[in-house]
C-alpha cells in the first residue's frame, strides 16, 4: 500500500523512535568519527565492508542507522588530518590541506577545525534537504520506469567504471567484467540453470557480496598496514585558537557554503564524478569566485577550508539520490550500502520509492541527525579527537583481522566463508598491488545480477523493440553524455589546473 509523502516522512521519523536504533546511530557516529580521524588508512569502504556482515542480520532500520551514522559523520570529521598533520584526509578532504595546514601552523588550528565542522554540518543538511526534495520531484518519473528503462539506468551506473578505474581504463574494465562474472555464480533466476556451481552447495546462491566486499577491502588494508607499518610519524601542529572563530567565519561565508554544497550535491548526483573530485571542484570554484583568493588561497585562507568541507558533506546527499531513487550506486560506499539494502529485501530504485518510501525518509532523517551530532562531537571533543589521530598501527592491525574474520563467519556461520574471505582477500591484495581497481569489481558484482534480470525481462517482454522506447532513448543519451563528459575530463586532466574539473580528476586517487 502506497502512502503519501508526508505520512512516509512521519513514518520514517517514527521508525527511528527506538532505543536500539538511536544506539546504533550513535555507535555509527562513533565509528565514523574514529575512521575519519584515525590515520592508518582506514576508510569508509573498509568500515562498511567490516560492518556489512554484522548489520545485515539486524533489523533493517537499526542496521541503516549504524551505516548512515558512520558515513555521514566521517566526512564532517575528516579535516583533522589535513589541518593538524598536513596530510590529506580521505577522498573528499584532500583539498583542505592547502589552506587548513597553514592555518594550523599559524596557530589557528581550532579556527580551521571550527570552520570545517560548521561548513560540514551545513553542507550535510543541504545535501540531506536536496535528497528529501528529490523524492517528490522524481516520483512521477519513477512510475514510468519498466525493465528496459531500469536496464539503461544500470548501464549508466556501470559507466562509473570509467571513473573508478582512474587512469587505468583497461584494468578497470577487466575488474568490472570479473565482478560481472562473479555475479553469475549460482542459479540463474530465469532458467534455473546452475552456473559455475561445480556441484558445491556452497555456491548454489553465489558467493555472498558482503563476504567479497569484506575480503577485497579488509584484508589488503590490514596487510598493507602490517607490511608497510604506516602511521602518522610526524607530530601534529599544536591545537590553538578558537573553534568559534571558525563558526563565525563560516556563517559570514554562508553564500559560499550554499554554493559549494550544491557543487557537492551535483557531484553526488551526476554519474561519473565522485568523492575524489568533489573537494577540488569546490576549492576551484572558491578560488575563482572569492574576492582576493589569488593572493590568500594556499596560504591559510579559511575559505579554502570552508569550500571543500561543505561540498564533501553535501555530496553524500547527492550520492543517495541516485542510489536510493534510481538504484545505482555512485561509489564503493553506496555500492556496499546497496548490498545491505538488497540483503534486507529492499530493491533500491523505483521499487523502493514506491514501496518503502518511509525507509528512504528514515535514511534522510538519520543523515540529518547524524550530521548534527557529528558536528557537535567535533566541537565538544576537538582536543580528544586530535589525540585519536595518533593511534598506532600495532594496535589497529590485530583488531582489523579479528573483525574481518569474525565478520566473515557471522554471515552464515559457514567455515567455507572463512576460506572465501582469505581467497578474495589475497585477490584484493594483488589487485591493489597491480593497480586493478577493486571498486570497479564491486560495482560489476552489485549491478551484474540486476542488469542481467532487467535485460532478460526487456527482451523477453518486448523483443528488441524496447530499444525504441522514448524513455530508453533519453536515458541512453544521458548515459552516453555523462560517459563522454567523464572521459573527456580524464583526457584533459593532465593539462589543466587543479581547480578545474579535469585537474581535479587528475588529482583523484582511484581508491584501489
Amino acid at each position, binding site marked *: *500500500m502506497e502512502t503519501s509523502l508526508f505520512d512516509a516522512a512521519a513514518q520514517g521519523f517514527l521508525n527511528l523512535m527506538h532505543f536500539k536504533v538511536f544506539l546504533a546511530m550513535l555507535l555509527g557516529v562513533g565509528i565514523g568519527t574514529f575512521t575519519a580521524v584515525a590515520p592508518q588508512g582506514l576508510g569508509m569502504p573498509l568500515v562498511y565492508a567490516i560492518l556489512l556482515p554484522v548489520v*545485515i*542480520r539486524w*533489523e*533493517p532500520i537499526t542496521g541503516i542507522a549504524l551505516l548512515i551514522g558512520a558515513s555521514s559523520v566521517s566526512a564532517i570529521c575528516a579535516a583533522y588530518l589535513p589541518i593538524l598533520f598536513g596530510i590529506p584526509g580521505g577522498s573528499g578532504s584532500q583539498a583542505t590541506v592547502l589552506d587548513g595546514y597553514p592555518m594550523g601552523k599559524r596557530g589557528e588550528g581550532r579556527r580551521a577545525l571550527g570552520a570545517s565542522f560548521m561548513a560540514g554540518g551545513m553542507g550535510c543538511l543541504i545535501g540531506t534537504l536536496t535528497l528529501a526534495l528529490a523524492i517528490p520531484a522524481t516520483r512521477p518519473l519513477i512510475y514510468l520506469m*519498466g*525493465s528496459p528503462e531500469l536496464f539503461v539506468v544500470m548501464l549508466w551506473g556501470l559507466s562509473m567504471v570509467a571513473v573508478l578505474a582512474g587512469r587505468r581504463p583497461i584494468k578497470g574494465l577487466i575488474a568490472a567484467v570479473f565482478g560481472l562474472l562473479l555475479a553469475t555464480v549460482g*542459479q*540463474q*533466476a*530465469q*532458467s*534455473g*540453470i*546452475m552456473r559455475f*556451481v561445480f*556441484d558445491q*552447495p556452497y555456491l*548454489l*546462491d553465489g558467493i555472498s557480496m558482503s563476504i567479497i566486499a569484506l575480503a577485497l577491502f579488509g584484508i589488503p588494508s590490514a596487510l598493507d598496514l602490517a607490511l608497510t607499518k604506516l602511521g602518522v610519524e610526524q607530530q601534529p601542529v599544536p591545537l590553538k585558537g578558537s573553534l568559534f572563530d571558525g563558526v563565525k567565519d563560516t556563517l559570514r561565508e554562508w553564500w559560499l557554503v550554499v554554493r559549494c554544497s550544491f557543487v557537492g550535491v551535483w557531484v553526488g548526483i551526476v554519474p561519473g564524478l565522485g568523492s575524489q573530485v568533489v573537494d577540488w571542484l569546490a576549492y576551484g570554484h572558491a578560488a575563482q569566485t572569492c574576492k582576493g583568493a589569488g593572493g590568500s588561497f594556499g596560504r591559510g585562507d579559511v575559505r579554502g577550508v570552508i569550500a571543500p568541507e561543505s561540498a564533501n558533506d553535501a555530496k553524500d546527499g547527492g550520492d543517495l539520490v541516485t542510489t536510493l531513487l534510481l538504484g545505482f550506486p555512485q561509489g564503493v560506499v553506496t555500492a556496499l550500502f546497496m548490498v545491505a539494502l538488497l*540483503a*534486507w*529485501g529492499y*530493491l533500491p530504485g523505483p*521499487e523502493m520509492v*514506491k*514501496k518503502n518510501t518511509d525507509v528512504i525518509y528514515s535514511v534522510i532523517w538519520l543523515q540529518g541527525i547524524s550530521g548534527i551530532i557529528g558536528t557537535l562531537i567535533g566541537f565538544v571533543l576537538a582536543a580528544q579527537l586530535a589525540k585519536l589521530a595518533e593511534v598506532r598501527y600495532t594496535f589497529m592491525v590485530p583488531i582489523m583481522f579479528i573483525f574481518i574474520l569474525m565478520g566473515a563467519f557471522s554471515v*552464515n*556461520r559457514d567455515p567455507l566463508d572463512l576460506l572465501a574471505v582469505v581467497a578474495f582477500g589475497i585477490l584484493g591484495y594483488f589487485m591493489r598491488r597491480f593497480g586493478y581497481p577493486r571498486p570497479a569489481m564491486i560495482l560489476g558484482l552489485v549491478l551484474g545480477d540486476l542488469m542481467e*534480470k532487467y535485460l*532478460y*525481462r526487456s527482451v*523477453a*517482454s*518486448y523483443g528488441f523493440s524496447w530499444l525504441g522506447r522514448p524513455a530508453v532513448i533519453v536515458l541512453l543519451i544521458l548515459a552516453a553524455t555523462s560517459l563522454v563528459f567523464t572521459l573527456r575530463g580524464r583526457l584533459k586532466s593532465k593539462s589543466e589546473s587543479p581547480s578545474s574539473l579535469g585537474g581535479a580528476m587528475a588529482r583523484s586517487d582511484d581508491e584501489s
Partner: protein
Amino acid sequence: MELKKRNFGPSAGRFLVTLLTYLLFLPGDLCSQTPFFQGKTITMIQGREPGGSGDLRPRALVPFLRKYIPGNPTIVMEYMPGGGGRKAANHLYRSARPDGLTIGNPSVGMISLAVLGESGILYDLDKFFYLGSPYSTYHAVFLSRKQAGLSSIEKLRAASGIRIGAQSVGFVTYNEGRLFAYLLGLKEPKFIAAYSGPEIDPALMRGEVDARSNGADTVVRRNREWLEGALVDFHAIIETPKGDKHPQFSHLPELESFARSDRERKLVILQRAFRIAGTPFVLPPGTPKDRVEILQEAFRKTYKDPEFFHEYKKLTGDEPSPLLPKDHERAIREIPREPEVIELFKKLVGAGPLPAR
C-alpha cells in the same frame, strides 16, 4: 618463579569431598525429575534471511513453544539462507546434533526440491521428524490484466504468446503459473521469470506482462484496488486442501477440473502436496524418540492454543491453518512419487516450453 601456595582450609576441603561424593552417587532417577530442556537453549535454524514474512511465522510460535516445552527452554533463531532451503536442510540432515536442541524450519522448497530430485539435495525427506506447520491452506489464482482483453478462459486459449510474469524458475508461484498455463491449455505462453514478488504487479499494470499466478490472500491484501477497480480478470484457482473454498474466489473453477487424465490430475495433487506441507518444522534424523515426542506435543499444544491464532495473525497478517505433527508426517508420506508423474511435473516446471498434452 615461585608459586604461592593457597590454603583453602579444612572446611573448603570437606565441602569439595562432599560435593564430589554427592555427584558420584546421585541416583539416576533423581536427575530425570528435571526436564531435559530446562535451562537449555534450542536453536531454530531458518533457511532464509532474517526480517521477511517467512521469519515472522516461526517467531510467532516461539513464546508458545517456550510455554509448552517442559523446562521452558530459551529459543534462539539462526539463519541459514541458500539454495531455496537446501542449505539449511542439508545442514540439519548431515551436521546438526540430533539432541532435540536443534529445530529446523528450512523453507517451503525443502519438500518439493527433494521430491523432484533437484541437484544439491543431500538429505532424505523420510528420515526427518516432522513437527507440523502453522499453515496448510493456500489458494493460488490465475489472473490477467483487464487491458489485455483476456476476459474469459476461451479468450485466454485463443490468444497466442501470452506473457506470464513469474519469480525465479523453481519458485513455487512460477510452478503454479506453469501449471495453470498447461492445464488451461494456453497457446505458446511466454514465461518471463526473474521478477521479485512485488515487482510483478507493477509490471502487469504497465503491460510488461499480461498475466500471473499469485496467492488469493496476497491479492486481497496487497492489490485491493485491482478488485475495487476491476483492473484484472480472474480465471481459475488451485484450492489447497482440495475443496477449501476461498471466501472471495469461490466462483472460480478449480484447476483440477481442467485435467484430461489421471496423470494430469496427479500434477495438481502433487502441487497441493507441496503447498500443504507449508513451511515444515523438522528435527534431525536420530533425535531421541522421547525428545521428539515432547517437542511434537509442544507444537501440537501451540497449534491448538487460541492465543496463538491471535498472535500469529497479529504478527504475520495471515490466518493460521495449522497442520499437526502426525498429519504432517502423513502428508509427506502421501506425496505422489510415481516416476512418470514426477518426470512430467519436472518438465512442466522447467524453463523450456510446456510439454505437449
